[in-house]
């Protein structure tokens, strides 16, 4: 295997980092504009039970250091965020940044685990049906099953999982990460499995991988390898599996994060989705802004990794 030209990798990394930060700047602006356009005053939440008089509101604004003009507000907020200060939750009064780190790690565990589950199911099916494209008898029911799992509402799948684990295996998966006894991690597998099966990505992953793998298997260089008696699998791996997997996973991250919102709700999982749900109910602006930003960072990091994998596999293609 030839070594990957480091210079090209570094250039790609820099270019993609620049693009990602440009996009995140845009994300922060969109988030800000949406909340700025919101009717009512988020600070009136703090005066619950009182008639929010202009004076009281102005007092609170001054106390919390709110600027008057919209761009002033945006830049002071952006400045704080870049310094790692996401503000304090209007509801609990705690700093958002610390909470955000905690919940985003929980969500990361949930989403990465569920991706692994999805891949463990989808990759063998896709490979099997692309290697033996004409074995319709097996691959068609499997494809159908993928479709059914994609259309299955994940909340209902969650109920089934809870019911089965309570009545069949005699444990309660709701305590999730908070479980104190030794095998608490076992409980966390249930939500991970549910999200992996029910996030609605399985059938798309299968379809995409199968198409790409079939395309690669029909390429001339694979035919040459086959004629030479070399391992077809080793030569088809990079283009036929590694690239499509990284592409589809990067593209599906937003979708999986959306599914995580629901799964966290069912299993009482202390993650970003649950926090976002709570914040939406409380109109807790600093929290929901922070979550939207962190979610966007997840998405951008995913596509950054995908670009790096692509460059590592195909340094020539990255040059154009």
């Amino acid at each position, binding site marked *: 295997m030839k070594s990957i030209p480091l210079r090209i990798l570094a250039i790609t990394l820099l270019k993609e980092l620049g693009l990602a930060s440009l996009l995140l700047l845009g994300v922060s602006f969109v988030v800000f504009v949406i909340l700025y356009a*919101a009717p009512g005053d988020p600070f009136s939440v703090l005066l619950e039970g009182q008639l929010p008089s202009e004076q009281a509101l102005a007092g609170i604004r001054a106390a919390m250091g709110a600027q008057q003009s919209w761009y002033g507000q945006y830049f002071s907020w952006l400045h704080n965020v870049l310094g790692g200060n996401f503000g304090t939750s209007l509801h609990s009064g705690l700093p958002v940044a610390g909470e955000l780190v905690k919940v985003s790690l929980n969500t990361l565990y949930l989403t990465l685990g569920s991706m692994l589950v999805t891949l463990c199911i989808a990759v063998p099916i896709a490979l099997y049906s692309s290697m033996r494209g004409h074995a319709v008898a097996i691959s068609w029911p499997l494809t159908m099953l993928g479709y059914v799992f994609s*259309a299955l*509402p994940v909340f209902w799948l969650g109920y089934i999982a809870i019911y089965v684990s309570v009545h069949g295996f005699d444990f309660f998966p709701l305590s999730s990460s908070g479980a104190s006894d030794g095998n608490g991690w076992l409980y966390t597998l249930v939500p991970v499995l549910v999200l992996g099966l029910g996030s609605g990505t399985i059938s798309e992953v299968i379809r995409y991988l199968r198409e790409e793998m079939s395309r690669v298997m029909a390429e001339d260089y694979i035919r040459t390898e086959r004629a030479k008696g070399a391992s077809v699998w080793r030569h088809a791996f990079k283009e036929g599996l590694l690239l499509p997997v990284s592409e589809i996973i990067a593209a599906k991250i937003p979708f999986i994060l*959306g599914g995580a*919102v*629901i799964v966290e709700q069912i299993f009482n999982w202390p993650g970003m989705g649950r926090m976002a749900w709570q914040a939406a109910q409380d109109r807790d602006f600093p929290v929901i802004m922070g979550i*939207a930003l962190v979610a966007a960072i997840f998405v951008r990091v995913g596509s950054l990794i995908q670009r790096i994998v692509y460059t590592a596999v195909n340094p020539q293609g990255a040059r154009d």
Partner: protein
Amino acid sequence: MRRSTRVKKYIQTSGEVSDFSKLPLHKKFSIPDLLYVGYGLLIVFLVLVSYVLGAFNLLPNDPQQINMDMLMAPPGTGGHLLGTDFMGRDIQSRLILGIQAYFLPGLLAIFISLSIGIVLGVLAGYRGGYAETVITYFTNLVDSFPRLVLILLVIAAFKPDIYYIMMVMGITGVPAVANAIAGKIRVLAQKNFIEAAIALGLRTRVIILKHILWYNCRALLIIQATLGMGEAILLETSLSYLGFGVQEPTPSWGNMVQSGANYFMQGNFWPSTAPALAILFTILGFNLLGDGLNNMLEGKRSR
């Protein structure tokens, strides 16, 4: 091109000359695709009929009639075809009425995705250059938000109104449409007939509207619309499950699943399983219809 090869194949196998359009359906398309599309069309038909029935209140039973003598009756008892829920209300009527929750908002979302997506896709694909850069930035920007998180943000900022939600849904659907159209135009631009149309002095408007969008992108747009409806249903049910959509006692499939949850844990599966199955079969129908049409019209064989 695809058609001519298919026709050639047919000629080779049957030994007689025939026109592609006169071939029987099962020779033109693969059997699974026909089944997919057939099932999808059946679901679309059922949803349409149920929507109209619900709109004119032509329901088999009163969906709000509480009957404490018949709690969680199994399907088929006492004139309730699909049984009753935990308050003795007729599940079948509530399922039919639940379609009101997503049907019009879903259409609105599709309309927004398609109309903005077409404009941006044509600009990016046909014009290229500066416009393309800006549009790529915009689509990447929209794609950076998980849809549900963006919607929770909008709910926090405004109010949990289904039309706001579907507007966001429509805008987040724009990148898929725009990318598909732009990609298609890039392929078409290399073909001779576009060059010929330009050489003939046809107006750009005619080339784009007639030769690109109408002749070559209509299949793609129908597919996008179908898949969009599936996503809209998924989103509406998820949101009303989370408590941000339609509120009880107005039925929506999501809040029906949610309100049946407590009884589910006690072993009374039906009240929350019936709407879950309705969601499953409907989304399955729209997805299969979209993919089946994609395979048929875009010339991919499904395996």
